[in-house]
């Protein structure tokens, strides 16, 4: 009797933990984007894609673009400059991406500074995630 109960509990936790957090991060960036620019009209996967593929080269010389470490095709695994594998950015391949707000903010802060030499705007972050959701 105990075993089925534990299994049911486990399934319940998985089903519950997933979607709740995934949907909190984009509305948060949307609110920030709207506060920064009242004419903001929603995130764009196309803008996100262009941003992802662009050769920014305004940050550190070693990291001119997102694709220095992530792959041009975000469904493929990337690689850090030190040789470590990075799980694909595409949500279809790595479904637990963009769920943990602290983690997402930490990596946007670091990587935007490395690649662009500044922090990213809420719109850039939202576009980026919107693009990865389509991949």
């Amino acid at each position: 009797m105990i075993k089925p109960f534990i299994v049911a509990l486990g399934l319940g936790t998985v089903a519950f933990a997933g979607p709740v957090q995934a949907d909190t991060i984009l509305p948060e960036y949307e609110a920030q984007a709207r506060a920064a620019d009242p004419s903001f009209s929603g995130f764009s996967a196309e803008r996100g894609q262009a941003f992802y593929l662009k050769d920014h080269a305004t940050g550190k010389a070693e990291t001119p673009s997102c694709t220095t470490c992530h792959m041009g095709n975000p469904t493929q695994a990337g690689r850090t400059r030190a040789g470590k594998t990075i799980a694909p950015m595409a949500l279809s391949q790595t479904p637990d991406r963009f769920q943990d707000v602290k983690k997402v903010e930490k990596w946007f802060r670091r990587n935007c500074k490395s690649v662009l030499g500044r922090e990213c705007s809420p719109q850039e972050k939202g576009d980026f995630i919107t693009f990865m959701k389509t991949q």
Partner: protein
Amino acid sequence: MGSYKKIFFALTLTSLIGTAAHADERYRPVQDEVVKKECGSCHMAFQPQMLPKRSWQKIMDGLENHFGEDASLDEATLQHVRAYLTDNAADSGWFGGKMMRGVRDNETPMRITELPYWVREHKKEVPVWAWSDPKVKSKTNCQACHRDAERGYYDDD
């Protein structure tokens, strides 16, 4: 019960002898979960015994430009990682360790791969072409050749 105890004793003894006999290139693995996660995202979390305290201090002071990338941390995490690295640094105990051979007191090495001992050991055994193998990519990638590097085991050469 008696025979179990005997077997256990024999196994313990064997492993102790084994450890003593092969204790050449072994380092205490990183035990701290925060350090493992924060130092191990982009590269392997290197064992702190491989650099002196002053090096870890300088590295932790400069995370905004960490070998060409921003690796900054929030203040609480930074202090936690800094404490672990300096508490377990090469010069934290009574034994400086061979990694410190040839490092002068007034020098603050910033890369393990530039320590005289590291350079000498790898020059002896690694052909130059091996470094440009795409599977290696960087000298920072210990595990490309030392498969158990994360567990502090570097004797597999």
